[in-house]
């Protein structure tokens, strides 16, 4: 048996958290810090190894590095992990962001508190388990577990309303999860009832996907809505987003980074893996609703962001717009759109995570996020200004940086099948520039106010913290092929699955159909869903 690398990826941070919790009280102050950061870096090493060893090509569209242990046999629950192109880079960005987030101090004085490190590690474990789980029950557990450390991380911030924010975060997402719980159980039971005699019921994703697509359409739609509500709250999609600005604003810097960079991706990832994949026909039927919420989210989030007077809140609302883009991409159902959605999830971890990190640096220097208290920082902290500008341009979607790759694929892909939603979402390119550049102007341009005159530029430690994010931003923007070649087979497979579930639908993978849905005959795929990966062979791209 090969090395169970995914089990290690899931359990390592949990082990480190336990070790920190069990450290004797009189242990040196620095020990938990090095234990936490060290395990984060080792974890990153394992994940990078996974990315490198991940097989690409159309024959490797399925899950890799799978690991399966029966867990609660009679009910068909198992510890089942695996990674494919869709989850691979979400895992990678998780492993990248957590060590950086852990290194940022939640309060400016003193060492890193143990509890903070511990909860962050638990959170990392839970996120990894959510991305890697191929068992619906395991996924639900991991998805729920994120709430507890999330709650305590927000509570560890310095904001005045942090208790309100943390409670609201907990309750709101928990309410959403109730729907998810019902949805999962219902799917399990409904599928089990239709299984041929003798085959055991199971929570594993392949069994569920095979069965769920044959359920009556009305049932599928109800189930998708149940899943959708949970994930929409988590993402958060307009109009389920109002817990988010408070939570992100009140949390400490590292908390905001992982909340926005990783945790909300659970929602977007969930809707793709557990929503669209399980109920493709319902997803196609409900696409106009999802697309509308996404497109409205782009406009809504950007406009509200522009009007904020608090820098951190502004970035938080930017997240709403970003989520809108992702949803628009996923529900376009084209290979480009879904690939773009996945790339956007990764991008968002880098650029929004990076923005929160930088906002934290501004806060450490000035102890405020109020835009009218800031100003002229570029004069006194030029390096901070340059780096902020680079990350901001990534969020704006400047070609050559990562944001553009995702944005373009999303819009171009969805334009082929759902033209007018893509047109509305395209306005995000303008609106994003408005709120971000306006914010930049108010923070960095103008004469340096007297209170801002004395602040110091980025320290070497801070530069080291942001450097990996910047490297990712530029690399993905210039040479996205390593990402796309790993993501696309899985997406091809998913699109083939959607087409199989709904034979009346033919999704063009390029625009050669003169703007319609017509597809050359050799691209029509007809394979059993879920397991075969040859489905993608016909759609690998135009010769």
């Amino acid at each position, binding site marked *: 048996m090969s090395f169970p690398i995914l089990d290690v990826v899931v359990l390592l941070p949990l082990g480190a958290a336990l070790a920190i919790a069990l450290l004797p009280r009189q242990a040196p102050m620095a020990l938990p810090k090095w234990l936490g950061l060290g395990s984060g870096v080792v974890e990153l090493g394992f994940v990078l190894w996974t990315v490198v060893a991940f097989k690409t090509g159309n024959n490797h569209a399925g899950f890799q590095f799978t690991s399966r242990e029966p867990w609660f046999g009679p009910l068909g629950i198992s510890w089942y992990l695996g990674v494919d192109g869709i989850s691979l880079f979400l895992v990678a960005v998780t492993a990248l962001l957590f060590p950086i987030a852990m290194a940022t101090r939640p309060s400016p004085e003193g060492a890193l508190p143990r509890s903070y490190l511990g909860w962050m590690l638990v959170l990392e474990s839970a996120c990894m388990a959510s991305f890697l789980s191929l068992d619906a029950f395991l996924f639900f557990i991991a998805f729920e577990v994120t709430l507890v450390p999330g709650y305590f991380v927000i509570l560890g911030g310095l904001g005045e309303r942090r208790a309100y924010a943390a409670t609201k975060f907990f309750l709101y997402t928990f309410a959403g999860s109730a729907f998810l719980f019902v949805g999962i*159980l219902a799917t399990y039971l409904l599928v089990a009832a239709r299984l041929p005699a003798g085959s055991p019921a199971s929570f594993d994703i392949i069994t569920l996907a095979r069965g769920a697509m044959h359920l009556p359409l009305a*049932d599928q739609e109800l189930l998708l809505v149940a899943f959708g509500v949970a994930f929409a709250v988590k993402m958060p999609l307009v109009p389920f987003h109002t817990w988010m600005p408070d939570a992100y604003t009140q949390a400490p810097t590292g908390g905001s980074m992982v909340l926005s960079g990783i945790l909300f991706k659970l929602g977007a990832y969930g809707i793709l893996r557990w929503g669209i994949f399980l109920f493709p026909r319902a997803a196609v039927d409900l696409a106009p609703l999802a697309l509308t919420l996404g497109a409205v989210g782009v406009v809504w989030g950007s406009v509200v962001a522009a009007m904020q007077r608090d820098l951190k809140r502004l970035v938080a609302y930017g997240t709403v717009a970003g989520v809108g883009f992702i949803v628009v991409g996923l529900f376009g159902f084209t290979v480009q759109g879904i690939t773009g959605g996945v790339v956007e999830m990764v991008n968002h971890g880098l650029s929004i995570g990076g923005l929160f990190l930088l906002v934290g640096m501004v806060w450490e220097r000035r102890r405020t996020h109020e835009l009218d208290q800031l100003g*002229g920082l570029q004069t006194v902290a030029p390096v901070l200004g340059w780096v902020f500008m680079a990350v901001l341009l990534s969020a704006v979607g400047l070609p*050559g940086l990562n944001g553009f*790759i995702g944005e373009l*694929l999303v819009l171009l892909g969805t*334009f082929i099948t759902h033209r007018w939603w893509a047109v509305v979402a395209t306005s995000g390119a303008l609106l994003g520039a408005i709120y971000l550049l306006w914010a930049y102007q108010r923070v960095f341009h103008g004469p340096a106010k007297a209170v801002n005159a004395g602040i110091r530029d980025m320290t070497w430690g801070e530069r080291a913290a942001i450097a990996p994010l910047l490297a990712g931003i530029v690399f993905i923007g210039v040479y996205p092929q390593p990402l796309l070649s790993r993501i696309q087979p899985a997406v091809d497979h998913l699109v083939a699955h959607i087409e199989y579930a709904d034979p009346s639908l033919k999704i063009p993978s390029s625009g050669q159909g003169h703007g319609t849905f017509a597809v050359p005959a050799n691209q029509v795929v007809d394979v059993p869903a879920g397991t075969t990966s040859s489905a993608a062979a016909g759609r690998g*791209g135009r010769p």
Partner: protein
Amino acid sequence: MTPAAVNAAYAVVALPLAGFVANLVLGRRLGEPKAGWVGTLAATGAFAAALVAWVGALGQPSASRSFDLKVFTWFPVAGLHVNVGLLVDPLSLTMALFVTGVSAAIHLYSIGYMHRDPGFDRFFVYLNLFLFSMAVLVMADNFLFSFLGWEGVGFCSYGLIGFWFQREVAAVAAKKAFVTNRAGDMGFLLAMFLLFAHFGSLNYSAVLGGLVGGHPTGLLAGAPGAVPGTTATAITLLLFLGAVGKSAQLPLYMWLPDAMEGPTPISALIHAATMVTAGVYLMARVAPLLHYAHATAWVVACVGVSTAFLAATIACAQDDIKKALAYSTISQLGYMFLAVGVGDYTDGVFHMLTHAFFKALLFLGAGAVIHALADRQDMKQMGGLARYLPVTAVTFGAAWLAISGIPPFAGFWSKDAILASAWEMNKVLWAIGALTAALTAYYMSRQFALVFTGRARWAEARPTPGGALAGAGAAFAEGEAGAGHAASGPGLPPPPHLEARPRDPSWVMAAPLVVLAIASVLGGGINFPAWHLDFLSRFLHPLFPATGAVASTATKWALSVVTTILSLGGLAFGLATWRTAEHPVLEPSFLRRAWYIDDTVSAAVSGPVQALADGLAYVMDRRLVDGFVNGVAGLLATSGRALRRVQNGYVRSYAFGLSVGVIALLAYVAFRVGS
């Protein structure tokens, strides 16, 4: 094409990129002037490389001068295959030659102009990044890679307009430029989506057809069935929206006058000679498609000629030397779009070239004047400078005659050719264009007279902040603070009195003036309309679909005479009138305030638009949506308490309520399964 020429084509893009990286990493350490020389070297190298590539292409038969050089695959996703690759053909070579050439001259000039500026190295970082982006824009082999350059130049423009970001005006102007451009870019993006949806490709050769093996293919070969007229119209209209933003045409022109907040070399390079012509380039590039979109062609021509006229009227009443030139640029860009709209692509490109020469020269000359007068920009406080700045005056004079359309200077030939083509399409287009030509000669003469002739008003004038005269120009009087004067750092007001007699600039600044002056005088020679000297037309000819009617020689002569008389009239009137500085009748306030268009837009944005957005943010988002959520939560909490089941805490009452709900739902599902 020879390997040397291929490598040279790569170098046109690679050298500025290398210069950018070098200055980004080492600029601070290199300091002044080395960082400037690194930048200039990169630009000059790119120009030399463009020359080599051009010579290489000339070695080929005229119909097969088109080469696609792939570097690597950028976007490989299913049906979408976009390369990072270069297209070397007559159009891209023409653009690359003039962009790198003008750019090299302005890099050199900037070493002198930015002397002692604390941001010296940052300036050249931006300048080389700009040149790289511009080279990508014109040499890319597909729409998407061009868009990278397109956005790149937009960003550099943002950074350079706001170069002196300590001043609020500059920061605001920079943001305005970027945002306005982005509005246009939405059009570009949507056009690409539509292109992909229709053609399944974003490559120029796949969409537009090309010259493969010496024969035109696709649309270029004249296969109108390849694209329905409505699709062609939609795509080209959306691309034109992008062009309108980038090239400052109606209605997205407002950012360009404000962009004069940037250092003067930037105004010359980016906001006159190169970047703003990118829109014209784009429309010329898609000429084979535009050929099948008659509605778009009409829109382009009408927008072009209206912009030309409107901007010219505004230019007649500006006091700020750079603002007058900015409106003049908008007006001249209008001529280029007029050319594109009437199907005379070659002369659009021709005017783009001659305009680049004389307008860059005008700006650089203005920079020399501003420098000599210690950062004064109000023309009403200038005068009589010809005696003090002879080199500047003579070179500026050449550009003045060129833009005024006086034969045999460069501008005459290109403008005349455009007007002749316009006459063939529609007489009204011609009439407005000809009237604009007279206005152009008038406002340029006004500028020349105010600056170089008459009394030396700068010797007597005192800056009157807030005074009636300085009113509009007050913000701009400070515009050049920090450029080259040790005493005035960025943001400081200019010294009240001149410390020394104004004099001509040093050789690094004078040399580009002279080079550009020669080009402004002789530039018409690249496309002389007789004796088979129309080099540019013959070079570009294979790339453009054949235009319809061409004016007969007799008509051309007649039209030439008419426009020349008009231009001379404007010239004489302007010169005669503006020997003195005060003629309120000729400067009504609606012209000084630019027809109140900018004011109206600003009022709308800061009034109703912002109020709406505020309403969305604070009423809709916070009160309505969040209020609803909190209301539901409160209701649940109250009912939880009322039930008196769980009393110890907020969280638990929810958990309880939810579990009840879950059980109920599960029961329902179990019932369904069971039945």
